[in-house]
């Protein structure tokens, strides 16, 4: 080592001044690495482009076929590929029903849990309670689907409301279970927003004589409102795109109904059921799932963009 260093010094000393090139040597290896690293980062662009191209291409074929026209697609409420009737609303309403039921469960519970964890719980209590939410968040959705079908429907819903009124497959059961599934998401996003509110705001509120509840609800929650709203919108997007719970528990047949105790297939459930069998690539059923997927992507993308916008637009900035 030492010898090497000395050699280096001697050699550089031997070079007359003015000859040393202080400008960086061109390193091709670095260039190659830079290119590879850039490609790895940019692969995600490929995914997005592929999604868009594939969905539009097949949906184009679908809307181009003689059985379908756009006004029927967006204007009618019967989805029967066998008879050539494609009205997206029978799938859309059940997606909206299950998602709204899920939000009715997840938002109050998630927000309550977030306020408790961020404003009330001591660090020890928090250490015990937080993992419960993390476990709930880690359970695969197919397991929730099993839970909805084997427990929520027969034991809770049919137990309370009677077997005659509640169908075995129903939107309420799927929605309630989905609410439990999304609860941790709402709770953790809201909690992040709440704990980002500076301490001085709470201290100011206590200084004016407010109780803990008044401080949380009147000072902290309004200050974190943009984050909480974003959480609700992201939760909605998750609920709309969720597949396994609705595929198992909500029903296996499109139906235009607003009765949550009845069975009705959602957009995701329909895609899963239709593509699960061996369908022919030439059939209109095959292209129809791409049209549904396009609508689905559009809805979730809109919700995700909206949540980003809400955060930017309504964020209260503190130093």
């Amino acid at each position: 080592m030492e010898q090497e260093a000395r050699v280096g010094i001697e050699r550089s000393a031997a070079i007359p001044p003015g000859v040393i090139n202080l400008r960086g040597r061109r390193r091709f290896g670095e260039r190659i690495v830079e290119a590879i690293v850039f490609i790895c980062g940019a692969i995600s662009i490929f995914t997005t482009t592929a999604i868009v191209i594939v969905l539009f291409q097949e949906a184009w074929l679908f809307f181009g076929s003689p059985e379908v026209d756009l006004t029927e697609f967006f204007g009618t409420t019967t989805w029967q590929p066998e008879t050539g009737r494609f009205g997206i609303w029978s799938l859309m309403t059940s997606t909206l029903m299950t998602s709204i039921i899920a939000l009715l469960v997840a938002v109050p519970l998630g927000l309550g849990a977030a306020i408790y964890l961020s404003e009330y719980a001591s660090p020890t209590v928090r250490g015990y309670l937080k993992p419960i939410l993390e476990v709930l968040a880690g359970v695969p959705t197919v397991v929730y689907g099993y839970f909805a079908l084997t427990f929520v429907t027969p034991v809770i819903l049919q137990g309370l409301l009677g077997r005659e009124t509640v169908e075995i497959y129903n939107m309420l059961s799927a929605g309630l279970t989905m609410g439990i599934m999304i609860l941790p998401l709402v709770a953790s996003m809201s909690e992040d927003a709440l704990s980002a509110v500076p301490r001085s705001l709470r201290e100011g509120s206590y200084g004016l004589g407010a109780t803990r509840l008044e401080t949380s609800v009147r000072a902290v929650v309004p200050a974190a409102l943009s984050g909480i709203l974003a959480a609700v919108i992201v939760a909605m997007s998750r609920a709309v795109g969720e597949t396994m719970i609705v595929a198992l528990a909500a029903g296996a047949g499109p139906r235009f109904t607003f009765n949550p105790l009845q069975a009705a297939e959602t957009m995701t459930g329909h895609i899963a059921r239709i593509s699960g069998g061996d369908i022919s690539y030439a059939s209109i059923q095959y292209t129809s799932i791409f049209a549904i997927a396009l609508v689905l992507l559009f809805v979730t993308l809109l919700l995700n963009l909206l949540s980003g916008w809400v955060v930017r637009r309504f964020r209260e900035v503190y130093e």
Partner: protein
Amino acid sequence: MSTTTNFDGRSTGYLPEGADINRNIATRRLRGKIWQTLFFSSLVIGSLALATLLYTIIDDSFGYIAVQTKIDPEELSDRPLEELSKEELIEILRANISAGLFRRFDRDEPFSERSKESVLQLVEERVIGREVAAAFKLTESLLERERIEATVRERFPRAELEFHSWINREFLTRPMSSVPFLAGVGNAILGSLWVIAITMLLVVPIGILGGVYLEEYASDTWYYRLIETNINNLAGVPSIIYGILGLAIFVRALEPITSGAAFGVTDSNGRTILSAGLTMALLVLPLMIINAREAIRAVPQSIRQASYGLGATRWQTVWHHVLPNALPGILTGTILSLSRAFGETAPLIVIGASTFIVSYPDSVFDKFTVIPIQIYNWTSQPGSQFRSIAAAAIIVLLVTLLLLNATAILLRNRFKRRY
């Protein structure tokens, strides 16, 4: 309506006086207590849901079963069947099944060439014919034993009652079967491992390098912002859309490659392990990049500056200093992405996981099934025994995920560094 009990910050110009102050404070404190209980109860509801979920799974996976046989094994021979020779077993088989069926078995594989185990299996399946006549849940098995015994005696007089754990060694190793009692998740476990292996081989290097690009190489240009926004939005795309993408690209457009036709495999279509792994890779990649980024960002700037100060190039800095320091975080992120891939079901349904295959996968061009698909399939079948094996498969899945996450937490704590 009394204004004293209705005090809130917005009521203008009113201040309680004298005894009203105490009443006012008492009301506000009471209200605080009530709401605190409500906030807490949302966590209680969450915990109750989790507890009920686990209870339902365990309730379904253990319990009494009434096993019925067509013939009592003791009637066939005075010795246990396992001790009989192959010839004696063949005689039993010949005596108890129709001649036509016997000839068919002989044609499929001559009895002279069959092993003793295979003949024994035939005797057990065809002659003895053990089947589950009724299955009971764990709770009723523990609490209402007498009632179960009475029911079984009355309805299945020849059946024997035994306590059965639906999750057992045979269940873990056997392939699928249309009879729940004989079904297992053996080939689903292998299928999961194959798919995850392909996914991880692709996602780990690409994800880490993608994270390196975003954190170390990119400058604030329009395409950097595009890539960043794009990755964040991709993480929010529903998983079933990835399934549709996989169906169109890997299963259909690239069928010659994913079915193995280009490599000389003939008996397959595009719905293979390779397609599943590639689809899953697209799904997990944004997650992996985001996790890798977090880990790389946590490496303090001073380490990079020291490295540059000694004349290292950018890649030398990344390779020798940033990545080794970010490794624990990257590992944790990898395990989290892996557990996401393990539990994901929807995209694999779309690209066409086979719900019924009995063979074990042995190449990437095989048809596949994975554990979550089996859970989905068995849950959607009618009949309580299918629920029981679905519950047993859920236990397998949850234990795997628990182990993965425990490893991630251990790694995080073991290698946590403070700068």
